[in-house]
């Protein structure tokens, strides 16, 4: 008997014959329940975040409404427009600081299959700005974790081939790079990995590949000629943070990753008030709560300013020592840093 990671699979009636749906259903090997629209069930009533551990449902749907969102200031490197595109809701991983635990009413995953329409929106956005435009995947879901099921990478890759001024960032903690490896590298198709020191990742990035696994995937893509980037975000304080980030940066340098990084973003752990409350409830014993948190300039809960600036400047210095180009380092979500 085949067991599935999915509790139930729901498919919108209007896309039941879509080839992408058929392909996904073949891979998940679970008889679907057909429904009119995903939101008649998904998120209608509050489903506790941690229920994803034992009753995670999958919805295959067609995204209606906004397919592309303008990212907030300080989202990526400054001075250029940044958008994120919405190809999925929710994530198979369980990072204790993740804002998704308070964002949707449910942890159930939705995979949208109308990528062609998303790409049309990206084309419109591209034409509305002179110069480079960034498109980020991974705002509401890991951008690589399920690509063996969804098979959409090729479409976005083609978009990058067609429009050199468009830059796509696939942000991930996944080592699922099989689909990527089938594609030729492009200078405007960037794969960025979120990294934390081993021990911290083990404590807070639940159900994700280890840091060593992520480094291995980065190394492989780097060797294949892919443009890669890294996010040290969120940085969580621990007394040994300096030595641990130093060790991570040395490992990256040994793999010759640092000199090739398109960018390295640094961001200290932060929460909206609601997500902080959710994280306290879901993970009361997590190290994310052990630091001196205050309500900061934008209403978010973070370490006090001298502490986070000290942490970021310390790690920035370590990164430069480990051959990361200073101009490729940016501080994330600090308005005046």
């Amino acid at each position: 008997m085949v067991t599935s990671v999915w509790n139930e699979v729901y498919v919108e009636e209007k896309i039941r014959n879509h080839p992408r749906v058929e392909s996904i259903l073949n891979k998940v090997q679970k008889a679907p329940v057909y429904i009119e629209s995903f939101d008649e069930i998904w998120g209608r009533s509050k489903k506790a975040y941690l229920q994803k551990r034992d009753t995670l449902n999958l919805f295959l749907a067609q995204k209606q409404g906004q397919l592309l969102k303008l990212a907030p200031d300080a989202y990526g490197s400054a001075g250029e427009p940044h958008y994120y595109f919405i190809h999925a809701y929710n994530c198979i991983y369980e990072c204790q600081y993740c804002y998704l635990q308070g964002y949707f009413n449910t942890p159930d995953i939705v995979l949208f299959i109308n990528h062609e329409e998303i790409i049309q929106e990206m084309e419109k956005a591209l034409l509305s700005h002179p110069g480079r435009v960034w498109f980020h995947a991974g705002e509401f879901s890991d951008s690589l974790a399920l690509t063996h099921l969804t098979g959409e990478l090729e479409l976005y890759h083609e978009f990058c081939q067609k429009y050199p001024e468009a830059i796509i960032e696939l942000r991930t903690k996944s080592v699922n790079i099989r689909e990527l490896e089938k594609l030729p590298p492009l200078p405007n198709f960037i794969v960025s990995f979120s990294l934390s020191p081993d021990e911290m990742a083990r404590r807070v990035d639940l159900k994700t590949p280890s840091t060593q696994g992520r480094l291995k995937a980065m190394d492989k893509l780097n060797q294949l000629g892919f443009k890669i980037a890294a996010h040290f975000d969120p940085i969580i304080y621990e007394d040994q943070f300096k030595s641990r980030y130093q060790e991570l940066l040395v490992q990256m340098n040994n793999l010759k990753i640092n000199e090739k990084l398109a960018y390295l973003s640094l961001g200290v752990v932060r929460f909206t008030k609601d997500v902080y409350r959710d994280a306290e409830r879901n993970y009361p014993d997590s190290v994310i709560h052990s630091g001196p948190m205050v309500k900061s300039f934008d209403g978010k809960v973070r370490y006090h300013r001298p502490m986070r600036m000290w942490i970021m400047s310390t790690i920035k210095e370590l990164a430069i020592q480990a051959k990361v180009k200073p101009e490729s380092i940016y501080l994330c979500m600090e308005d005046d840093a």
Partner: protein
Amino acid sequence: MHLITMAHLGEAQGVIEKFHLQKVRPDLFKNEEMILLLTGEGPMEAVTKTALILPLYPFQEVINLGVAGSLKNHAIGEIHPVRSLYLVQNLKPGFKSFQVFSEGLDCLTSFERILDFEKADKLRGLGHLVDREAWGVAMAAKTAGIPFKAFKIISDVAGTVDACEIIKEKAYEFSEKLSDHLEKYFASINQKIQTTKKILPGFHFTFSTEHQYKSLLQKLSIKEQRSEEEILQSLHTETLREQKLSPKERSRRLLEEMENRVDPLKAKLFQQKLTLQESFKEKGLTIITDPQWENPKAIISFEAATDLELQEKIEALKAVSLESFAKIMNGDFSVE
């Protein structure tokens, strides 16, 4: 006082006998510590009857007990705490749901009996169990601000046509199991109350400092990956106890020690702030910085009664510097 709600007399019989409840009216039984309410079947009945009884007694908790059909092959006769409660109407979930226990099974309270497998199939992704009352009782309890719990005994497989007959036949057996479970639940609550942590002798905590103490103890335990007992042993509580200090002062110093361990910069920032304030005070000026260390701007003030004094203060302002403050706010310092 506890309010126990159950749907029918048949499933409530065990509770009535075990807890020696006296009949007050056909749907109400009581002793000195609990009231048992028979709500009848269906979410509307449950919410209405529960809401009507709640204002009449000082309830500290509402507990729903009863049978439920399984959507996921659970063994008949098993009792489970309810984790989440959803209301379903026309096989679709309603907007409001309730979290009950952090672990357990998810229960759907349905407006209709689920007597065919096709309907049960449609509900399988939404929960593990189907009942007819729990959501209604939860709605009334939560609206009144009273804690709510629910335990369900698996009575049948949801979608079975003859489920009702099975439940009727086994009603007394289920009812005995539920009453045993309720007895164990009460025993576990009493044990928890007795083992609640005692506060340190020789120290005085107010309501807010006690909260602060517990929160810091937990933070240190997480940060240093040691038990709270080990953290307590590592603090200088004995030294503080030996010193001639008031219990309140002892507590203040203990909290300070704990805060310094949670925040590696706290002592350093405090010292730098004192130095900064002193340098301004020497010139007759006052500097106020954000106690939370968040606002990168400081307030500088002075008093003056005459033009001459004002000119002196303006001259004094030219001689002070905010450089050290800006450095602190930008994290430009070293920490050993």
